[in-house]
């Protein structure tokens, strides 16, 4: 197998692919990247046996079909070599024998060990039960507004990801770690197909949101019961296993008829919370809201008995009340709010808080209170 390519053309595709590969591996081949050449096209594939990223690059120089082939090489080393080469470098990739690949560029020469391509985990076959198109920008926004609430290494494995719920008239994207929840919806026409709910694992979500662009380009999603495949462009594809489990009933945890409504400037509230959090318990981050007519007081106190107090002008005409929260959860939610003003919907001291952008229904953040 042989091909030639410029450093510039190779760097970005390789970077995208290598990011899925864990450098510490018990199975050596999983630390490798799959390199294939066919019909003057280079195809790079990286996987951690759960998430797979696949990228193709057209090759300029016609090298003839007798140079086609497939091989795997150590991903991290290959990428580091390519990255360290000078800007305009021209790279020659040549498989010398069964277990040796030589990379040449100008006066540099690298010889890498390799493993046969047949042993590389094959991409999942998807018997698509549902497939549709979506804009890059739309998916990017949906994920940005929800992914922060995913759990990390929770024993309730179904929380370690983001749930995509395909409903008849909309797509709901939702994540929760059991303490707070983030929900974003997008109008969507299922066109008579069966509704479907899937949970995409954390790692795939993180890779995906890194690869999404802020553009109106269309991407294609297809899935079956166990896999999801997202074709980001004609060159870039991400496929992932799905988490096998049922996501909690998130509609059920949304507060019903909250009657104490506070409207305030997003930025101001965020800044006040950031300042207050300095003097909350550095590990457990409790702060307290006290609501009165058009006024909100945010206080915190740490074990050293130091105190912070912030007064905030808000729109509020409900009864006076006090409630405590983990300030990190509030800040996480506010950070992804895109509107200038937000609305906080309270019920009472022991019930969850709903945060929404003002006058918008498609983003909902729910946070459980803390008793301080």
């Amino acid at each position, binding site marked *: 197998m042989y091909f030639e390519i410029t450093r510039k053309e190779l760097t970005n595709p390789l970077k995208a692919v290598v990011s899925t590969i864990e450098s510490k591996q018990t199975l050596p081949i999983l630390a490798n990247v799959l390199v294939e050449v066919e019909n003057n096209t280079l195809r790079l594939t990286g996987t951690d046996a759960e998430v797979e990223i696949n990228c193709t690059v057209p090759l300029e120089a016609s090298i003839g079909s007798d140079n086609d082939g497939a091989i795997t090489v150590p991903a991290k080393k290959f990428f580091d070599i390519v990255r360290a080469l000078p800007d305009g470098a021209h790279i020659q990739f040549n498989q010398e024998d069964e277990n040796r690949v030589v990379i040449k560029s100008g006066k540099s020469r690298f010889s890498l060990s390799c493993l046969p391509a047949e042993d590389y985990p094959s991409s999942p076959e998807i018997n698509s039960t549902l497939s549709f198109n979506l804009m890059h920008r739309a998916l990017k926004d949906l994920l940005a507004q929800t992914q922060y609430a995913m759990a990390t290494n929770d*024993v*309730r494995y179904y*929380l370690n990801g983001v749930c995509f719920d395909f409903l008849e008239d909309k797509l709901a994207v939702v994540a*929760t770690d*059991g*303490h*707070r*929840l983030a929900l974003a919806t997008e109008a969507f026409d299922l066109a008579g197909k069966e509704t479907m709910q899937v949970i995409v694992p954390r790692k795939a979500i993180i890779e995906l949101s890194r690869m999404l662009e802020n553009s109106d380009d269309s991407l294609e999603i297809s899935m079956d019961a166990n896999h999801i495949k997202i074709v980001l462009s004609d060159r870039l594809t991400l496929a992932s296993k799905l988490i096998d489990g049922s996501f*909690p009933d998130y509609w059920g*945890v949304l507060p019903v008829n909250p009657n104490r409504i506070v409207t305030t400037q997003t930025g101001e509230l965020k800044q006040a919370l950031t300042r207050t959090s300095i003097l909350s*318990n550095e*590990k*457990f981050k*409790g702060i307290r809201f006290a609501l009165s007519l058009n006024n909100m007081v945010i206080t915190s106190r740490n*074990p*050293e008995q130091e105190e912070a107090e912030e007064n905030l002008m808000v729109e509020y005409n409900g009864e006076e009340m006090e409630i*405590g929260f*983990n300030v990190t959860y509030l800040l996480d939610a506010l950070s992804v709010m895109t509107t200038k003003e937000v609305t906080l919907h309270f019920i009472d001291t*022991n019930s*969850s808080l709903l945060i929404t952008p003002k006058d918008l229904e498609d983003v909902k953040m*729910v*946070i*459980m*209170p*803390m*008793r*301080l």
Partner: protein
Amino acid sequence: MPYAIRNSHIQHLPTLVANQIAAGEVVERPASVVKELLENSLDAGATEVEIEIEKGGINLIRVRDNGCGIRVNELALALNRHTTSKIKCIEDLESLSSLGFRGEALASIAAVARLTLISHFHEANTGYTLQINDIQEMSEPVPIASPVGTCIEVHELFYNTPARRRFLRTPQTEFNHIQETVKKLALSCFNVGFSLKHNRKVLTSLPPATTESLQQQRIAKLCGQEFLEHTLDVHEDREALQLHGWISMPTYSRSQANMQYFFLNGRFIRDKLINHAVRQAYRDVLYRDRHACYVLYLTLDPKLVDVNVHPTKHEVRFAESEQVHHFIVATLQRHLATTMPKTEENTQPQSIVATEPEKITKNTESTLPSLTYHIQPKPTRSAVQETLQTYQTLAAPNSSKITVPQVSNAFESEKTENFTEKITVPQVSNAFESEKTENFTEAIMPPLGYALGQLLGIYILAENKKGLVLVDMHAAHERITYEQLKVVWQTKKNNDVQQLLVPETLSLNDQEIATAKQYETFFKRLGFKFDFSDKKHLLILEVPNVLQKTNIGTLVQDVLADLIYLGVSDRIEEQILTKLASIACHRSVRANHQLNLAEMNNLLRQMEHTERSNQCNHGRPTWIQLTQKELDALFMRGK
């Protein structure tokens, strides 16, 4: 069902067979015989007991006492099953003061060995002897010359139960068990003298120990001098409960839980509730899987405890187990809290807590210390040199440079300030002016003395009255921070609680659900809220904030298991304390953190004020003393 059983009739077992079966429970090995006989002697009011063993007790066990003896007409009766003088009716069991009461020891022994009984009743003129022969027939009592008291000889144990005999170990092993038995009884009865012979050699001889020093001698003989040197005296007297004895300092521990002696009303017991209580008390001071050593005596109203659980009486049941558990934990914890640097070898907790802080304040204010330094920089590593240089500039007479240490959360910043002001007027003079040094040390030297410098970025060197003190800076600071966090946590009435958006669901069995319900207030106090609406599942609605990111489900399940098994559980507190300990660890100064003298001295003073500061959160020692004597020995001075 085998044919033979299907066709056999129900009938009474012959007495011998019944006795042999019963003996299986009581007489397990020679040591059990010794235990039963010794308990009889002690119940008879003996003040001297002689035990003679031959071939590990397999050939001969002879126990001779000077107790009240047995009346001649009762000799034969004593060997029958269910005959005893210790109780008369079942009510007596409730206020039992003797060790035995079941009335089956002698009968059981007689069923599996050849037994000779010699007894001289204290009101009679002469002693009598009686034997049981092979076919379990008793001879008539024959007069014999004997001192007042009883002597029982057990020959050829298990001669008629070959199965048991096969399971006996080597004579030496069996003798070791006997020795352990004697040890337990000797620890419980200080007023009785014991002597133990094996193969005609006296191995242990313990005179009656009536005074405290004699008692300590006995402890040293039985548990080792080293144990005695590393113990804390425990003495706690409440109306219903009294606990006294000795417990090991956390830095003196064993890899096996074999030096643990707990006596309940004079009876040795091995009880899971007690074990749990002791482990809990030693929770954050013991190194890894080490075990504490203790000799403890608990006295309580016999009515509140049931010893009739098992024939060997090692297990007991408490009427108010939770209260007993709490009492033991609280008492031991209070005594363990005193493991901090002290001026005198005073282990009475009350006096320490009350006087120590005052003493130190007064001292620092009353005298101007004239620190004597002996600087002979002999740097082997650059780090040391640097430290010494810093130190030299700091110790220079124009001490205005020294700033008040900014140790966060200092005890009382005022005091610290006073202290540093005073300490920063040292006269740098040559060492070996021993007179001056001594004056100075006697007058005001705090237990850990004053810092000399930092070694390898890890240790603080300090000088006190006895010599050199080496402090592991991180370990010490870790303990100080941890204790402060603990105080904050404990003074807070309720844990901060995080409500859950998605409740954690546990599938539990009926017993576990019932237990969770029963202990609902216990869980609530710690910050848990449950929902019982589902019969098979427990929903956790609220969790203590500290325990975020821990596996709550497993924790609750473990706690329920504890509650079912023991009736108490400290797992939640344990988890919380572990969390606090890890916070403390991250907040503490690390190796290679350069400290100036004032900071080091402040750390030493904080250690003197912090409970349990002799060991870090993980049970490692925080400081050691190298006395002048030890140092002299290294240099062969004065030899």
